[in-house]
């Protein structure tokens, strides 16, 4: 008899009766904070530069908030990255013994360079050195872009967590950045009605597309493996179902709807509520998405 199917009739009742304790959740809310803060820290640059390009008259507003908010939130990202290490005082090993096949290592260099440029931008803004500031914009935006998407590469390297490796993850990271960037500027109060409406559109579209991707990939599509099916069940209708659903509603459904309703007429209160809701919901979605694959028994 084929040994692979020899005990098939009794598999339904197969039960683990002795095993070591599993590791469980290793990457917890510190890592969620890392991803969430990075979305804000890079999103303000990506959205801010686009807004500056479109609305030249409000350059001062964006020139002030882009580097200030960006630097603060990338600082938070780095802080939570280091805090999450079990040997946080060895963080410098990343730069002394770099392993370039590791997305974490590439990310450490990217984030360090990005925060360095942001610090220079803050300095240039403070000293009113427009020439230096303008020279820094292009390289900083390029780094913001790559700092946004490298996390998708990092998660893709987690071979054991299939759900983190979905092909649309890069797009989701970018959408999280545009969602967070537009939400941040709406909370800070954009200078004109027209700009509020534009930011509302960015928020609304980012939320709508992110929601559609999640629905298509996580809720509607059949998964390619039993492991992925197990994780998606945990995420959508299992232990994390309530958190994930709340995240989808607050992070995507409400911002998409409120942004759309404010498309013609500026409704500042509604847009600010949508912005706060988007940031809170994004945290919930990221957290549930981070935790679910870690609940899968690997052996």
């Amino acid at each position, binding site marked *: 008899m084929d040994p692979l199917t020899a005990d098939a009739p009794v598999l339904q009742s197969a039960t683990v009766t002795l095993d070591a304790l*599993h590791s469980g959740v290793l990457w917890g809310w510190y890592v969620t904070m890392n991803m969430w803060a990075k979305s804000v820290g890079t999103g303000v640059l990506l959205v801010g530069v686009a807004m500056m390009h479109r609305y030249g008259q409000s350059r001062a507003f964006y020139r002030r908030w882009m580097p200030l908010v960006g630097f603060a939130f990338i600082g938070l990202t780095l802080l939570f990255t280091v805090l999450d290490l079990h*040997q946080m005082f060895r963080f410098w090993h990343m730069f002394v013994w770099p392993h370039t096949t590791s997305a974490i290592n590439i990310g450490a260099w990217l984030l360090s360079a990005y925060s360095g440029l942001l610090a220079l931008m803050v300095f240039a803004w403070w000293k009113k050195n427009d020439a230096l500031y303008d020279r820094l914009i292009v390289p900083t935006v390029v780094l913001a872009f790559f700092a946004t998407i490298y996390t998708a590469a990092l998660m893709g390297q987690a071979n054991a967590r299939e759900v983190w490796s979905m092909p649309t993850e890069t797009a989701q990271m970018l959408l999280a950045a545009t969602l967070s960037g537009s939400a941040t500027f709406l909370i800070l109060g954009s200078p004109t009605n027209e700009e509020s409406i534009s930011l509302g559109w960015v928020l609304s579209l980012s939320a709508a597309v992110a929601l559609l991707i999640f629905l298509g990939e996580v809720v509607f599509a059949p998964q390619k493996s039993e492991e992925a099916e197990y994780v998606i069940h945990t995420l959508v209708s299992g232990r994390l179902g309530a958190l994930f659903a709340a995240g989808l509603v607050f992070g995507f459904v409400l911002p998409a709807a409120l942004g759309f309703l404010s498309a013609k007429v500026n409704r500042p209160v509604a847009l600010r509520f949508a912005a706060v809701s988007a940031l809170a919901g994004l945290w919930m979605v990221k957290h549930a998405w981070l935790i679910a694959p870690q609940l899968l028994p690997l052996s």
Partner: protein
Amino acid sequence: MRLGFLVDLDNCMGCKACEVACKAENEVPVNSWRLRVKYVDSGVYPEAKRSFTPMRCNHCENAPCERVCPVSALHYLPNGIVNVDKDRCIGCAACMMACPYGAIYMDPETNTADKCTYCAHRVEGGLEPACVVACPTEANIFGDLDEPGSHISQYIASHRDVRVRKPEKGTKPKHFYTGGGANHLEPLASKREEGPSLFNRIGTLDKIGGE
């Protein structure tokens, strides 16, 4: 040289001598395991059976843990062993996220990642891994996969049911199994109900790593 392992599941009787030998040899802390034997019970009396599966690092040829480690703390030795440099490890746990076999743990005493190294220190001195020596039924077979005359190569050649865990992950494990049934290697082929069980508590660690 390409060192590998093979476990003949039909020979394993679940005595855990390999586990104990590994713990003692490598001073593995409490609640941490480089090698463990999982028991799975199936069927209903009188048609009941218990199966035993020793599990350790697979020392993959395409090791995701080695690739994701940001500081090369996980690295290949010339004999194919995937080794750990605990002095270099920063404890980011990316290797634990990458390993599809759950073979890596966070040492609570050093706060660094650790795992089975096929007893690289013993192998270097011409000895066999501690678990191989301790096994009373010779279910653990260790040797050079590149040497056609080695015991492991001949064992693989003479058995038709040699397999690895999760081949779909593309990791090319150098740890093989023969004998046994479907619920030995598939984690989702058996129920894992959290709580007190026949021998111990089935569950997850309350805390990972040390202070």
